[in-house]
């Protein structure tokens, strides 16, 4: 007799989306079953060996602020860490850490296994059960049936996947793992539209055969900032490994150009659409024909192995061409390939079928997250995973879904883009996609989202109280600086002259002085009457070293973004009890106050249109003056608000005006009825 079991939530796939989804659902009290084709491959990193990076680092911190696991897991298992873009504004600072892949997988598995309500099953789900547009459960290949009111698809790149290089086609998922060949048909039977996407990964080489002396060493930061707001910074200051930078050259490009006809990408064997923002090396050579070199980052796959990842060289060229081109690169002349580069093709859901909650519009209880929604990247997957997990649980509990909007989080931008815009290729998070990025910084993810995580039930009371204390401390310190004035005394003018700043003509607040580009919170400590006495003898503040012990180690750009040597509760020697995170928030807030205010005004404008809800029953064919294309698009996407409608491609500003006018009349008529 076939097995028949009952649970609350079934999560299909245990990658980065599946793990967060299952953890969120289980932690919210749902009996959750997590299906994977291989228990040994939980939270697998089949491509790049790092977490974070430009804008993706933001996502990790947001997942963490909501109570997710990715940040904590990378803090436990990183082997190098770096805050990127320090020379730019705080909005684009981004954390990136190299992971020890094996440990990353192992630690995540341990967390899953120790979470109550969460059960891991190694099985391929073959069928989704639904009746009358309502989810009923899933059936595995072996016929075991799990009845449940909510299912979350986190199938990544496994649906009908095949891996290709040259003329070699292997019918597997990533890394030679078993593909999921049954589920696509079941999804189609439910009326779900699938897309065929493509992505790829570079070759891995044996570190013993690499000449590092020909490459530039890329070290980690001297002071590591953890990803998770819960990680004690002291625990992440450790020995780090290096990455290495080298470049392709004309010889490399000539080999690639000469072999394009043997690439399945160009010969037409690959039907799926590839990512423009994570292009293969052959794409780059074709598209940037005028560039005589491209960067390659050589990154360790972990402490347990010699294997190295060649970042920037993903490819689907034949094996012999791969060897040849790699050997043209300085430092890699004698490199031995461990694993070939390959392209992977897979089925994914057309995400326009989803609501902003990640639930299917037409199938109640079915959710979808991660690469299965046409995104790319571990971080994008995790971000969707936690939201789908939360919303599946809330659906069962009869609660309203949690929807983050574009002014609240990168997660909001990500999901809104996925379900609203036409995606022809795997979607990658980028800073440019976030209109309000000065407000959505990685350093304030906790201030933005931890309260939501607490209300949802994923953030414990103690952590929430800590957040409230932090917020209060920031507000108090800002107020104090706004009310602390310095006069025109000679020592003030001398201080300003020393910092290349123009003298003041009358009394001015410290907050005002902080706006000057050449000054910041830490430097102004010298003028701060409340800087207090140095905590111990001999630690007299010297110019430019107002921040104490950390000051000597961090350069100008790093100050604003660095984490703390001084962890929670430890005393700042100059301003009472303030932690580093508090000082950092105060500095950013006051320094960029004008910009922040203007961005907040933009958000106000944005929210006006988001608040204009469109009734789901609206028949766009009845709206006069709407262009045919707009009727088609709006009927397909069924946006929740005027704001969302305005972001659908093919819907023009005039169409939006038509809609606004129509809605007004519609509401008017409704009132009269």
């Amino acid at each position, binding site marked *: 007799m076939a097995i028949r079991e009952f649970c609350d939530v079934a999560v299909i796939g245990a990658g980065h989306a599946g793990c967060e989804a299952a953890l969120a659902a289980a932690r919210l009290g749902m009996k959750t079953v997590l299906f994977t084709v291989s228990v040994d491959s939980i939270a697998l990193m089949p491509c790049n060996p790092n977490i974070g990076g430009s804008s993706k680092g933001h996502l990790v911190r947001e997942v963490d602020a909501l109570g997710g696991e990715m940040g904590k897991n990378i803090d436990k298992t990183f082997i190098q860490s770096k805050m990127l873009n320090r020379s730019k504004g705080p909005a684009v600072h981004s954390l990136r850490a190299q992971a020890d892949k094996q440990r990353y997988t192992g630690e995540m598995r341990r967390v899953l296994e120790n979470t109550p309500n969460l059960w891991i099953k190694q099985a391929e789900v073959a069928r989704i059960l639904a009746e009358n547009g309502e989810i009923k459960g899933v059936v595995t290949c072996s016929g075991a049936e799990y009845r449940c009111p909510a299912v979350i698809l986190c199938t990544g790149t496994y649906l009908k996947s095949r891996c290709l290089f040259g003329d070699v086609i292997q019918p597997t998922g990533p890394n030679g793992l078993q593909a999921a060949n049954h589920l696509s048909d079941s999804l189609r039977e439910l009326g779900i539209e699938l897309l065929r996407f493509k992505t790829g990964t570079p070759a891995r080489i044996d570190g013993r055969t690499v000449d590092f002396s020909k490459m530039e060493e890329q070290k980690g930061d001297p002071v590591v900032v953890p990803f998770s707001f819960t990680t004690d910074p002291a625990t992440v200051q450790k020995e780090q490994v290096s990455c290495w930078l080298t470049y392709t050259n004309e010889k490399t490009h000539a080999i690639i150009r000469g072999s394009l006809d043997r690439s399945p990408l160009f010969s037409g064997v690959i039907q799926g659409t590839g990512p423009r923002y994570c292009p293969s090396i052959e794409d780059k050579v074709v598209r940037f024909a005028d560039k005589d070199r*491209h960067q390659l980052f050589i990154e360790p796959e972990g402490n347990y192995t010699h294997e190295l990842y060649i970042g920037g060289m993903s490819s689907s060229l034949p094996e012999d061409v791969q060897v040849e081109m790699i050997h043209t690169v300085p430092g890699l002349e004698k490199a031995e390939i461990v694993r070939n580069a390959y392209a992977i093709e897979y089925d994914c859901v057309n995400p326009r079928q989803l609501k902003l909650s990640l639930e299917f519009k037409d199938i109640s209880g079915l959710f979808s997250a991660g690469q299965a929604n046409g995104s790319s990247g571990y971080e994008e997957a995790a971000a969707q995973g936690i939201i789908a997990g939360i919303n599946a649980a809330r659906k069962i509990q009869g609660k309203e879904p949690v929807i983050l909007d574009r002014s609240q989080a990168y997660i909001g931008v990500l999901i809104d883009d996925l379900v609203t815009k036409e995606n022809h290729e795997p979607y990658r998070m980028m800073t*440019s996609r976030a209109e309000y990025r*000065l407000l959505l910084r990685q350093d304030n993810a906790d201030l933005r989202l931890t309260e939501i995580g607490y209300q949802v039930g994923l953030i414990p009371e103690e952590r929430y109280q800590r957040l409230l204390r932090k917020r209060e401390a920031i507000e108090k310190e800002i107020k104090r600086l706004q009310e602390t004035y310095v006069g025109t005394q000679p020592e003030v003018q001398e201080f300003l002259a020393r910092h290349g700043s123009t003298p003041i003509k009358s009394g001015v607040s410290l907050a005002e002085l902080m706006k000057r*580009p050449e000054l910041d919170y830490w430097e102004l400590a010298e003028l701060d009457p409340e800087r207090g006495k140095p905590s111990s003898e001999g630690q007299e503040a010297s110019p430019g070293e107002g921040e104490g012990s950390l000051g000597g180690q961090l350069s100008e750009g790093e100050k604003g973004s660095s984490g703390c040597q001084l962890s929670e509760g430890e005393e700042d020697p100059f301003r009472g009890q303030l932690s580093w995170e508090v000082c950092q928030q105060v500095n950013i807030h006051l320094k960029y106050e004008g910009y922040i205010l*203007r961005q907040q005004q933009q958000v106000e404008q944005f929210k006006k249109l988001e608040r204009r809800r469109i009734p789901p029953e609206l028949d766009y064919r009845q709206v*006069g003056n709407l262009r045919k294309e707009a009727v088609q698009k709006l009927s397909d996407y069924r946006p929740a608000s005027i704001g969302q409608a305005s972001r659908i491609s093919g819907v023009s*500003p005039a169409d939006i*005006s038509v809609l606004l*006018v129509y809605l007004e009349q519609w509401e008017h008529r409704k009132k009269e009825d």
Partner: protein
Amino acid sequence: MADTIAAIASGLTYGGIGIVRISGSQAFSVGDRLVRLRKGQLAEAKSHTAHYGFAYDGETPVDEVLALVMRGPHSYTGEDTVEIQCHGGPLVMRRILQAALGHGARLAEPGEFTKRAFLNGRLDLSQAEAVMGLIQSQNEFARRASLEQLKGSVGEKIRELRGKILHQIAFIEAALDDPEHISLEGYQEELEGMLLPLLEEIRGLLKGAERGKILSDGIRTVILGRPNAGKSSLLNLLTGEERAIVTEIPGTTRDTLEESVQLGDISLRLVDTAGIRDTQDQVEKIGVERARQQAEKADLLLCVVDSSRPLNQDDQEILGLLEGRRALILLNKSDLPAEVSREELEGAAAAPVILFSAREGTGREELERRIREMFDAGEIGTNQQVTITSLRHREALEQAEKSLNLVLESVRQGLPEDFYSIDLMDAYRQLGLILGEEVGEDLVNEIFSKFCMGK
């Protein structure tokens, strides 16, 4: 898909011809039920043709009419349109409109025809507004400026400015996303090099806007001068032969009564002419203090000086008011021997001097020429310069200027590039409001509600 609307388009007064306009998907079928042609049907008629027949309300003939057929998208609204020309009596027009409504049309809201033209993409917002400007224009300048705007001159200019801003936004964003391939080195100079001329252009438009507003509303003009200097003579010179077109502007109190005077294609709004005309009956009371108050609100000051009397304290004080203003001094030629010469006046005040004589009718031409020069009115219509006349456009331009100045400030302070896009985006959006390409929540309804019925 659009419902069909109808309204009286020609105004509800007695006239030679009255027009009822019907627009929408059912315009032809409504028209056919309304008008019995001698032969054929409006629904089968070619676009832009006229058809003779009788309008009926039920079985009752209402009037003899000419029906014009315009097929969408080649009509004012972009939809199928029928215009029924009838004899221009209010009762006739009302009966025809009633009949159209009876046949399934809905009474159009004020401005709804033009709104449809905008919503159907026939006009951008600035063009739609120009329609209203054209209808309401009080003088040649306003008419020409509105016509240029209707032809798309404003939209074209704004689109060009927006394009330049968008290019920079796109570049910054691309560089942030792909630092490997797109370098921001030297970008600050490049951006500044683009911002400065852009700001210059916007300032030029704003300057023109100020002038444009003055010219299209009429130049608010105050006549100054000590008692008996000859202010009423000047008034007569200005209004004399053209007494017929002097209109009293309604709604103003007697105290600030204005008269509008056409001077070629520009108009002057003369303030407080009553105070000048009434001097027959009572001692002229416009003291220096009153003159000062009025002068503050004026676009143009005309100061009259009597050449037969030497300059006194009052003259000196009044001439002092002209400092830094658009002003002209008019030396009233008297039969009496001259005590004040043109040269003396030119030395005493910062404004050009014109000799005039109301009796001989001289000085008017020079006055007109000087005023035209002063307000650059000579350029209007003679070159392609875009003139902004709408207050809404002006406000948007001012906001855009403010935002671009903030960008410039950020560049000069050496802030990182990602800060620039906040204010660039604001400037881009503000300009988009002019075209209706940025969605302002109730902007569209607000604008069209100011239109008159039937347009």
